[in-house]
């Protein structure tokens, strides 16, 4: 009885693991190229989940078709974040404090006025809270300060700074989505039938999510190994100075890989909702951040394919341990499974921080 249940859950775990692996590839890609840990990882998954939800509920578009939309949205988000806050930290210009000229001041005033007009226009259609105006004002102020003081920094910032910036962006996304959609948990129901394989029943949506994850991983593999653009990105990881000498625009590769990493993460959010279409709320990302760290560390933090295989392993571990904990009386298996995954993280970090799998 228990073995049958275990086997069924392990099959489920393998399917889920494929999605987990896909959800971690973005994290590993960003760390591999830029040496930045995206602490706000879960928030980007949440953005993907809301994209799928909104596409499905408002427009009736099935999540599979929402995948490219999520990728584009994520890449745009990644580009904006990279140029707004990550680039000044990883490749500082060091040109000193800029004295704004009259023309600069004119442009700033023009941007400010147009922002105000847009906000006024929007508030005619939607009920916008005053805080949104303050938020937009703060972003404007940030841009202004970045323009004037942006070149003040002379050296590369410590890791601390990039950790905190990605963390803060995660908080912004969570809070922003909370204000737009409130913090209640939502879900959608996309039923396209089930597949019964004897020991367990797999809905086609889950299989489709796993299939989507595997094919994205394969496409990424081919892109990295067979195309010039992919090889250029890999060359930056191998030797950024050498790549620069050979005419690779390293700065653009940084921007591209950051945005691709975020794009993949947002896309994986869509796939995750195909697997678990309920409980979509602004703070759903937290557990996924932790899971993604465990998976990334399992597969070697800097390797996207390692992350994919790490995801498969993690899916098996998670579902397997859940089934076994459920047998023990007097404990809550769900919470213990989460604790167990944290324990795995610590143990791996302790014995082999470079990853167990070390896939290239």
């Amino acid at each position, binding site marked *: 009885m228990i073995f049958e249940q275990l086997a069924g859950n392990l099959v489920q775990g393998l399917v889920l693991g494929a999605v987990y692996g896909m959800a971690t590839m973005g994290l590993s890609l960003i760390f591999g190229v830029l040496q930045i840990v995206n602490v706000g990882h879960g928030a980007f998954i949440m953005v993907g989940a809301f994209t799928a939800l909104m596409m499905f509920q408002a427009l009736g578009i099935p999540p599979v078709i929402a995948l490219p939309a999520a990728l584009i949205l994520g890449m745009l988000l990644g580009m904006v974040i990279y140029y707004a806050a990550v680039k000044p930290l990883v490749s500082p210009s060091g040109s000193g404090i800029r004295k704004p000229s009259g023309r600069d001041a004119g442009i700033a005033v023009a941007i400010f006025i147009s922002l105000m007009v847009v906000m006024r226009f929007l508030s005619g259609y939607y009920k916008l809270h005053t805080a949104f105006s303050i938020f937009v004002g703060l972003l404007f102020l*940030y841009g202004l300060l970045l323009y004037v003081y942006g070149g003040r920094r002379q050296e590369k910032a410590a890791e601390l700074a990039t950790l905190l910036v990605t963390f803060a962006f995660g908080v912004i996304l969570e*809070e*922003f989505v909370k204000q737009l959609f409130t913090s209640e948990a939502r879900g959608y129901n996309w039923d396209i039938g089930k597949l019964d394989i004897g020991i367990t029943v797999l809905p086609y949506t889950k299989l489709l999510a796993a299939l989507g994850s595997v094919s994205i991983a394969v496409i990424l593999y081919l892109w990295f190994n067979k195309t010039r653009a992919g090889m250029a990105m890999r060359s930056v990881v191998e030797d950024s100075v050498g790549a620069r000498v050979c005419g690779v625009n390293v700065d653009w590769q940084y921007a591209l890989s950051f945005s691709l990493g975020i794009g993949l993460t947002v896309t994986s959010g869509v796939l995750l909702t195909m697997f678990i279409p309920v409980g979509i709320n602004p703070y759903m990302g937290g557990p996924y951040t932790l899971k993604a760290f465990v998976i990334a560390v399992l597969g070697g933090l800097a390797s996207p394919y390692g992350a994919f295989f790490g995801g498969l392993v993690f899916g098996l571990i998670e579902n397997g341990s859940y089934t076994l904990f459920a047998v023990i009386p007097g404990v809550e298996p769900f919470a213990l499974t989460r604790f167990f995954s944290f324990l795995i993280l610590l143990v791996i970090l302790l014995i082999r921080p470079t990853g167990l799998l070390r896939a290239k």
Partner: protein
Amino acid sequence: MRRAQRYYPIIPVLVAYAMLLGYGLLFPGKWQLVAQLAFYCTLGQAFNLFMGMTGYVDFGYVAFIGIGTYGMAISIYYLYDKGLGLFIVVIGFILAAIFSTLLSLAVGAVALRLRGAYFAIATIGVNEGFRYLIEGARIWNGADGIIFSLHLKKAVGRETMMVLSTFWADVLVFTVAIAAAVLTLVFMRNKVGYALMALRMDEDAAKVMGINVTKYKIIAFITSATLAGLLGAAAWALKLTYIYPVDAFAIHYTVEAIIIVLLGGAGTLMGPIVGGLIYGVAKYFLAIVLPGFQLLIFAPIIITIIVIFPEGTVGILKKRVMGTALQKYII
């Protein structure tokens, strides 16, 4: 004379806390606000002891506050009928300190071997992991938490309990704050501080120079965690008289600690006070004017500080007073 001078920077800190306390005593209606501000200053002061001095971010810091709260809760919940009177509060503080020290030893033993990004990854799960351990294995009532207001009332009497949770708890928070500030300065002016400064600048170089970096990191980590445990026992357990794992291990408080330290200036002595006051007052008014939007407003501010003004308020002030008579008071 010169030895005493090295400890002058504690004067503005003490003055600031005395003014805050005095304000609260003179205007009893404002005591709630003062207590809140004191909590934020203390949180920043204790967090700064590790993050500011080593340059490592501990994303699981709130776990130490939570476990400290549990220390006090357990003492009151299980010992209330032993006729110990107010002594159970003392035992509670001792338990809080022991629990948080033990947890920080366990976490530090793993996490402090790791550097930079790996350290952050190891700590980000500490609060969640610990919460799920308590909930999953049903330790200390599991997810149902411990509600001990009746036990406290039985142990010390109704009157004492009221005074304890509305006045003395906050005074104890002040005490923790001052202890944290004094410890920070003592560390800064002794070998620990110099070693940590070298570590912050360049960990490899520090190692090559023969500094046992792990030892000093552990010292700072445990001190910071123990102070957090005491803060939890005073500010949460005694004031609220209940505890649920969901609240006690919410990452939200780590975010607040990071904001406070960065606002004031990481690694400075005055920073957490300035940051705590700015954050506390701003949050107080934002909660009235724009409830629920605090984090949406504060997150862009954190980014602004990290990218553009990494020194924080006191860091900038420190540069300004360099070479003037004020120099020896502000670090």
